[in-house]
């Protein structure tokens, strides 16, 4: 198990190095000068030179790469051109919205998917199964921004349970923050939960057809016991894979929902930085997202090994 974890960790480090090199190359080596690109066509030569010095573009490339990576390791992501403030600080502020939102949505999606998937699988072919699967079909089909607007209409405008948007900040109290994130999290979680429920159901049904389920029944376990004790854990591998993918998506892919609810999240930051040609911010956020995806994959790999002893052995 330790060897497996070490091996996965090694691959994590290698992935990070490769990813940082690729991002650096794309932004720095791609044709065109970042400074002139950022300033637009009508930039004055002296402004351009000043920006080039500020961005550190007068240093050789290899050295620049190590400066960039070294800075990131120490938490220094550079200064945003458009906002004139440290990128690290900007990302950190947004992270405090995006990360809790992603976790909240993922928690909700799992909370919807597990019971729904298990219920449908255990009652395969019955009315209950059909109803649950029909509902997940709908959940997959409905666009989340539309669902978000319906939520706002019902819960914020009519019932006035939640505010229609904005984020008060965690310093104003934990529950206030949670409340502000609830509607966005539900809107994000619905389609994800529906997909996950379908994966859970089909994975469980595959397992319930396996020979060892028949063996378990011959030992005297009831249908319900075989499902919980024998099928569920075996069915977790594809489910974990989907959860890992969904987390990465939720962290960065919430742009539309952030827009609908006026949330100052990472998605909006990327969107605004791209519009403002703020390459340093884009570069840093992309690196951060890549980092989080790789770390999540690492966590999923470890979870596989916890679930399946065969993976622990195969180092």
């Amino acid at each position, binding site marked *: 198990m330790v060897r497996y974890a070490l091996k996965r960790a090694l691959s994590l480090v290698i992935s990070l190095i490769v990813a940082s090199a690729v991002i650096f190359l794309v932004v720095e080596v791609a044709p065109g000068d970042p400074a002139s690109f950022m300033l637009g066509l009508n930039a004055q030569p002296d402004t351009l030179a000043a920006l080039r010095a500020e961005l550190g573009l007068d240093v050789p490339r290899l050295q620049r790469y190590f400066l960039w990576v070294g800075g990131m390791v120490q938490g220094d992501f550079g200064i945003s051109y458009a906002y004139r403030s440290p990128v690290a600080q900007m990302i950190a502020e947004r992270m405090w919205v995006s990360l809790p939102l992603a976790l909240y949505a993922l928690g909700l999606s799992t909370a919807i998917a597990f019971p729904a998937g298990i219920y449908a699988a255990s009652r395969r072919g019955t009315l209950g199964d059909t109803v649950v699967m029909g509902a997940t079909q709908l959940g997959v089909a409905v666009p989340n921004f539309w669902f978000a607007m319906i939520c706002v209409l019902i819960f914020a405008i009519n019932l006035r349970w939640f505010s229609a948007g904005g984020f008060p900040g965690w310093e104003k109290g934990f529950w206030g923050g949670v409340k502000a994130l609830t509607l966005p999290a539900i809107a994000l979680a619905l389609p994800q939960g529906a997909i996950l429920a379908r994966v859970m159901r089909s994975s469980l049904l595959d397992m319930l057809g396996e020979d060892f389920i*028949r063996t378990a*029944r011959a030992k005297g376990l009831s249908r319900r016991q075989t499902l919980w004790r024998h099928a569920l854990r075996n069915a977790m591998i594809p489910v974990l894979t989907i959860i890992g993918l969904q987390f990465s998506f939720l962290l960065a892919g919430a742009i539309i929902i952030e827009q609908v609810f006026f949330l100052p999240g990472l998605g909006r930051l990327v969107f605004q930085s791209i519009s403002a040609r703020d390459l340093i911010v884009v570069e840093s956020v992309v690196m951060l997202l890549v980092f989080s995806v790789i770390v999540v994959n690492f966590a999923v790999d470890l979870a596989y090994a916890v679930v399946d002893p065969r993976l622990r052995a195969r180092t």
Partner: protein
Amino acid sequence: MTLLSVQGLDVAINGAPILRGVSFDIAPGQIVALTGESGSGKSMTALATMGLLPKGAVAAGKLLLEGRDILTTPETALCALRGNAMGMVFQEPMTALNPVHSIGDQVAETLRIHGTDSRAEARRIARDMLARVGLPDDRFPLSRFPHELSGGQRQRVVIAMAIARRPRLLIADEPTTALDVTTQAQILDLLRGLVADFGMGLMMITHDLAVVAKMADRIVVMKDGAVVEQGETRQILHHMRHPYTRALLAASTHRPKLSPRITKDDPILTVTDAVRSYAEPRKTLFGPRTVRRAVDGVSLTIHNRERVGLVGESGCGKSTLTRAILGLEPLQGGTITAFGHDIANLPPALRSGLQVVFQDPYGSFNPRHKVARLIAEPYHLLPRPPDSARREADIAQALTEVGLTPGDADKYIHEFSGGQRQRIAIARALILRPDLIVFDEAVSALDVSVRAQVLDLLARISASHGLAYLFISHDLSVVRSVTDRVLVMKSGKIVEQGETRAVFSNPQHPYTRALIAAAPVLPALHQEETA
């Protein structure tokens, strides 16, 4: 008192009758074999006894376990009986265990759900039971996972799970069919010992009459869901009344009439010191990779019109060697030459002289193609494939040769039974008139009567086409009946080779002797005595 009494059992699934009036008894300490070909209803009888009939099944009649009718017992009470009063062992040990639970947990689970309260006590009994089935704790601790065990060892775990509560009735459904002969002999000994020790009744389901003859006190012969004959084993084997039983025994001991051997020194396939090795995963993070030699310096020659057998147990390297001969595996050493060319760059026209028939008649055809197209597949090897009229004539002829009709060319593969599919596979191999066909366990998945027909077909075409073949099998009796020369393979090496008759009557290598000793043999003489 009888332990299990099956009285007039009828089972229908979605209206289609599966079992019709099945009746037999099992007494404590008695081994009763249910035998018959696939589809005869053996397994369904076992599942009915366990109360595990599939969805849509309707059962009638009586199934009395110690006087209690299984068919009228509610599901919760059945759960209490399964694993407790009756246990079951299945055919496929590789998939019968849950891969994510340790063997100790899986054996202990049987005990825990049937009332052994303390976890420690359950594990203690599990340890004893695993030791009883030949997996002592010092070599096979409870923490082992199924993937760390061989097929035979896994079957032992399944048996330990089934007998943990010392059930009165044990049902074993083809418990050794998926195992090698030497492992089969051990598992059969184990089952017999358990029956004697615990006084259990054993319902043993097997299609293998040789196993039946070795194990059973009584035989129940089934066909199409009904019992055609039953009685004491000796009695049945000596005085078979029913024609089906006779046909079954005749098919089991069937030896096709081989044409006389023609010995010509005209090698068409030469394997010289072939080595195929695989790199194993590293043991430590940066440690060296160990190399496993699946085929380790094998040399063999097949001459024109020669019928050669290759026997060995699973994992001995037979399949790897087969793939190498077919040019599907690169070699790390040695050479394989067919028709005077290296196998790796054999010209397509010559390649057509070497064909293969695989084991699985279900998985080796593309289900979306018609038989005509499936059979005509090897034509792409020819530089100038024949025109369509010629092609149709060839297809019709190939189908006729294997005992099918030309009209079958327009059907899809799912319309055929396993035996017919294997005939189609042979037709596909024959269509280019090859000089050599490799049969890789080609009759292992077939029922005895179908197997007998396919073996006859093989003997016939080898004579009529002047065909040489390499017949690879784990089944010694089959290899013995269709080959002139035999090679015995173990751990990637050929340990013995010679004339088939000489090797079987006077084996030299200890491994060959062990193989022959372990293979159950039908008392073939009985039939002649009584006839």
